[in-house]
């Protein structure tokens, strides 16, 4: 990357770049969690099992993800039979 396109030089002497990386990572983590919960759901995992794997309560997972996933899969999601949302 050349000087023109980059306003800041990276490295530990530049706290801003470090903090920006945290923000970028946080946003990416949120998207990744949403995607992997959705993947597990489609694979037929129960909320309890997903919660266990994430190390959080079932209520927490349900509260954070159920509505979004339900909206994305209005019918029965593939690989998920006879389970309630």
């Amino acid at each position, binding site marked *: *990357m050349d000087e*023109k*396109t*980059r*306003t*800041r030089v*990276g490295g530990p002497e530049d706290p*801003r*770049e470090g903090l*920006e*990386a945290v*923000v*970028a*990572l*946080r*946003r*990416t983590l*949120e*998207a*990744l969690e*949403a*995607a*992997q919960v*959705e*993947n597990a759901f*489609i694979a037929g995992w129960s909320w309890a099992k997903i919660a266990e794997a994430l190390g959080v309560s079932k209520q927490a997972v349900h509260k954070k993800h159920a*509505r*979004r996933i339900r*909206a994305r899969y209005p019918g029965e999601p593939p690989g998920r039979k006879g389970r309630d949302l």
Partner: protein
Amino acid sequence: MFTRFADRSRQSVEAAFEEARMLGHDSLGDEDLLLGILRADEGIAAEALSSLGVTLEGAREESEEMLTDALSSIGISLEEVRTEAGDAFDMRIPDNRRIPYSPLAKKALVEARKEMRRLGNNCLGTEHVLLGILDNEDGAAVRMLVRMGVAPEKLEERLFEVCGRAAG
């Protein structure tokens, strides 16, 4: 908060929230306010920006590139994360999650009002919002503009040129 806001600048803030949501920003940044101005279009600010080659598409891409660069600075490839997670991976903030104003976005809007008074106007237009954004010298919006090859001083100058033409 929106007292004296012109319809267009109010719309630009609404559009900014939509842009932030789409890009996965968990708070409304001052760069999103800039995107909102570009999306609401047709104002003095949008004219100044487009005359310097700043388009909505270009700014969106730059914002995504800033995210990619920030991740790669700590050794993470967004592309790999995306590939691993599959089709379900989407940076977009879900509709049921509210996103707050970031401190810098708030500051830009406060400064916008001051700019309006300073210029002796009594209606807050997108040009004032843009000036407010430029007041955040170290904000993401200014850094984004610089990455796109637009110097803040140049943009401010162009803004006053367009304003002058609009007035006279």
